[in-house]
């Protein structure tokens, strides 16, 4: 335990932050180990951005403690700024500058780190080196923002919703980049409301809702914790008796949703035949049937009864 504590790159204790009418962060504890990628997963408004901005020293917490790399904001802010790489949600860099000029500017703020050209290579923007920022696509802008976070050769990288608003291809490209940073041994704290992103990139995840951490662990642990391995979704032509479905062995949870039914089960090979039998007993025709392995999304649904993204 003692050994693990010394390896923590970021430790947050009983953090609280309230704005006028809302408690954004309600007493959370986090610990990010050196070299890991830690994800804050939660819907919009869960308090992820407030949490990460407190860690970045941009927002003052009402109470609680934040320790980064063994340092504290109130005494070591200058040293900390040199060692953090930060990518904020929805920053628009100056549109009149080129990619290279932007990175030269950001590089000039740090004592050490890779040159602007090297940072461009790292995020694969060589072709856009001399393009104005205003002419970049969303994905390219996001990669440039990432490069701006890298020019100081940070020990700790903060990424706030790095892929929000990107198309799937651009998102995958960004994931590849972040995976490379992970392989290079960087410590990363990222926020996201995409469960695929958290599952793919994060060694450990904290699920946040209404300013609280409602569950924490590796994605595998979290999924295992709900005792559900599979999810069955189906729709029927006429209304059916949900109670009958809930009685099927191995079914943990049944809820109707968007005109369909969502069923969490432990044993897929037993649950599906039993479901079909129950439907024919009730005389209800099946119009749609899908199954998938449980994901972090299902963990969130299990814990809160809501989806990560409101559709």
């Amino acid at each position: 335990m003692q050994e693990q504590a010394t390896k923590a790159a970021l430790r947050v204790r009983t953090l609280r932050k309230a704005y006028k009418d809302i408690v954004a962060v309600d007493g959370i504890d986090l610990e990010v180990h050196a070299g890991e990628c830690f994800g804050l997963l939660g819907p919009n408004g869960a308090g992820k951005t407030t949490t990460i901005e407190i860690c970045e020293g941009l927002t003052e917490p009402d109470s609680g403690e934040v320790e980064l790399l063994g340092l504290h904001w109130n005494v070591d802010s200058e040293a900390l700024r040199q060692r953090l790489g930060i990518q904020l949600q929805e920053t628009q860099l100056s549109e009149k500058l080129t990619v290279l000029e932007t990175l030269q500017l950001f590089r000039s703020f740090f004592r050490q780190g890779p040159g602007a050209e090297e940072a461009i290579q790292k995020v694969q923007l060589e072709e856009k080196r001399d393009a104005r920022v205003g002419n970049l696509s969303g994905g390219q802008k996001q990669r440039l923002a990432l490069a701006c976070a890298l020019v100081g050769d940070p020990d700790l990288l903060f990424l706030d919703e790095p892929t929000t608003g990107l198309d799937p291809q651009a998102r995958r490209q960004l994931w590849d980049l972040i995976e490379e940073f992970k392989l290079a041994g960087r410590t990363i704290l990222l926020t996201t409301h995409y469960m695929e992103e958290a599952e793919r990139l994060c060694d450990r995840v904290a699920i946040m809702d209404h300013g609280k951490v409602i569950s924490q662990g590796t994605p595998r642990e979290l999924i295992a914790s709900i005792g559900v391995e599979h999810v069955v979704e189906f729709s029927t032509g006429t209304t059916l008796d949900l109670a009958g479905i809930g009685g099927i062995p191995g079914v943990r949870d049944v809820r109707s949703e968007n005109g369909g039914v969502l069923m969490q089960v432990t044993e897929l090979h037993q649950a599906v035949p039993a479901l079909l039998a129950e439907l024919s007993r009730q005389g209800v025709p099946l119009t749609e049937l899908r199954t998938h392995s449980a994901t972090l999304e299902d963990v969130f649904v299990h814990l809160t009864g809501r989806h990560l993204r409101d559709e």
Partner: protein
Amino acid sequence: MSKISEHSLFQLTLMRMREFIREPEALFWALIFPIALAAGLGIAFRNQPPQVLTIAAVTPRLSDALRQEKLLNVMQLPRVIAEQSLRTGKVVLLAEPGPDGSIVYRYDDTNPEGRQARMLADQAIQRASGRQDAVAGNDKIMREPGSRYIDFLIPGLIGMGIMGNAVWGLGFAIVDARRKKLLKRIIATPMPKHYYLLSFLFWRLLLLVVEVGVPLAFGALVFGVPMRGSAIALIAISILGALAFSALGLLVASRVKTIEAISGLANATMVPMWIVSGVFFSSQRFPDLVQPLIKALPLTAVIDALRANMLQGAGFAQMAPQAAVLGAWLAVCFGLALKLFRWR
């Protein structure tokens, strides 16, 4: 790359410059527009040769007498046509013989040209009839650079340029950066915060060379506007003015989050000064009661000092009151701005 080009201040100032020169509209409004304005107004209000008034006379004798006056253009017309010309304003006065050898002048006494024509015509008739002037009057014409409208205008436009570019330049750039969360991103780096503000200052001073130099050179070369005072005093007052207006720009932009709000606020700050501070016409035209107030405005101070320097050759000592006004604005605005400024 050399060492200085890797310095944050150099890079930040470079960013200001790039953002400015890559915005063609900014370039136009800051540099081309004031010159176009000076050229337009200089031509419109150029000193014109004495105006010649066109009048009508109905008899050859009258015409001959009136033609002695060089400032009258006399047309000899039949009465009916002459009357019609007077009614339609083609001539401003009609002279015709009256009873007992007298002369009748017909004109509109509410028209200044008509009254002037009446005086000139009567004088010409009287002289032609043998009147001798009791006292001889000799004219000495003064048309000296320094007293024309363009000489008055150029210092006004320079002052207006210093104010507009500083308030707009800082106000717009800061609010835009705040709106785009760029301010927040930049303070998330190790950059010392005062570098950001200093970069504006450096860029302002660089641009000052152009925004003062160009109208000055234009006025001197095209209209022969004089520069009688010391150049160093002129540079000093321009720099002080730029600093004071930069502080004002910083203050108006210290909290604003939208472009609409900064546009309104900047206009509300500057338009009153455009009107009362004597850019286009002398601020002396406003009542004595408000003169101390007008004199305390930064634009009045800059323009008065520039005019005194360029037109009357004033040096540092004569510009001290204006310099004091600008120094006070600089200190108060900068102090307030530092207290109020929000990075996000």
